[in-house]
């Protein structure tokens, strides 16, 4: 999925303030809301993926689950304020794209030219190394003879059974495939390394090849969970800032006087004097 970054907007609907007062509260609470969300959004991503992995069991391999969850908490999230709204962007491409996913599926695939797609060289010639491991499949014609036999062998391998390969004279050679599927999964995870594109199997499902998994709305669940958590964080910290502002701000004020509210620049009074709050609620002028 190229360039997929859910853009989640959290608004001020949970805060009972408007206009300047809301802007001031958001200004006060903004830095802590930003840091809390930036820290916790990757954890929410991990939690949602964990639920999705559980829902996909037993078909979704345990090694995929472990790999996805080992990296899910590192997904970068950016948090920024646009007016009084908080915009959260989650970079799921960091976790892995469809190109990453196919990288492991394509390794050592033979093209019709008998070159390997992305292996180190070829079964047929040591000089055939024009495709690197990172190269995605771009639609080259494939070496795909004896489709039925290959399919049968793959299905046997997934089940770990014994495949009987019959030669032209009818004599069979038994191939014990026990453990080969597990080894295939391990190899894939090794190839993916610090990417975990298996999350796309959870998102889109897999119909044509093992592991057969039904699609889930993983990104939708992430959005919901982040919005719910984000609303709580936003409301709590902004309301707290609001209380502070209200407790520091006198009811009747002059716009040109500094009242000691957080984050507001000191201002000059009409008399050209910088004022601070003095004892007994009065304002003590300071000559500057």
């Amino acid at each position, binding site marked *: 999925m190229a360039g997929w970054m859910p853009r989640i907007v959290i608004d001020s609907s949970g805060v009972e303030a408007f206009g300047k007062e809301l802007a001031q509260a958001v200004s006060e609470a903004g830095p802590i809301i930003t840091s809390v969300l930036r820290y916790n959004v990757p954890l929410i991503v991990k939690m949602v993926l964990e639920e999705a992995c559980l829902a996909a069991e037993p078909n979704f391999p345990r090694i995929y689950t472990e790999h996805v969850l080992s990296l899910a908490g590192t997904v970068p999230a950016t948090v920024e304020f646009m007016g009084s709204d908080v915009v959260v962007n989650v970079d799921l491409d960091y976790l892995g794209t469809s190109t990453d996913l196919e990288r492991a599926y394509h390794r050592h695939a033979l093209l019709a030219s008998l070159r390997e797609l992305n292996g180190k060289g070829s079964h047929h010639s040591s000089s055939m190394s024009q495709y690197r491991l990172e190269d995605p499949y771009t639609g080259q014609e494939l070496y795909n003879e004896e489709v039925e036999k290959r399919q049968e062998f793959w299905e046997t391998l997934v089940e770990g059974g014994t495949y009987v390969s019959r030669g032209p004279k009818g004599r069979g050679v038994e191939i014990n495939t026990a453990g080969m599927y597990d080894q295939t999964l391990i190899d894939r995870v090794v190839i993916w390394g610090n990417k975990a594109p298996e999350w796309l199997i959870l998102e*889109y499902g897999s*119909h044509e090849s093992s592991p057969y998994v039904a699609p889930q*709305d993983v990104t*939708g669940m992430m959005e919901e969970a982040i919005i719910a958590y984000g609303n709580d964080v936003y409301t709590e910290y902004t309301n707290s800032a609001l209380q502070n502002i209200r407790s520091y701000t006198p009811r009747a004020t002059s716009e040109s006087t500094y009242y000691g509210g957080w984050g507001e620049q000191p201002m000059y009074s009409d008399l050209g004097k910088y004022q601070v709050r003095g004892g007994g609620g009065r304002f003590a002028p300071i000559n500057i």
Partner: protein
Amino acid sequence: MGRKQYYEKRSISTALQTYLATQSWTGLTFKEGWKDEEIQIGDVAIQILPSSPVLTDMGQHASTYTYTVQVEAYLESEPRAEAFEDAVMEFMDLASISIVDKNSTVLGSIICDTDSIRADTLPPVFTTPKVLWWRAVIRGKFEAHYY
């Protein structure tokens, strides 16, 4: 799947088939799902995702429902898969689909949230030599309004 979702899924499928036909798309086979059937080139399936909030009530009158729909197709090449995605995304963006029951009675309408529409193209999985086709996946969040 509830009866409403069944009607919605069928209505989306019918509307999409009609739309694609007007866009000169031929050779497509619309399926109920993938199940255990062998996947053929040109197979299309529409799925209402079970993990999305199923028929979330948006108001007191339970007349509006939201859910995520996934349209998928297996096609012979990457450009064709991408062209299919473009067509389906345009359909999702523009279409207002009537929900009809088995008696062709109009129950309501469905629209898609434009901002939620996205697509991806997945290359063939080489371990399965029988299905060496490109997979087009298109997602969107739909809202169904009942009269």
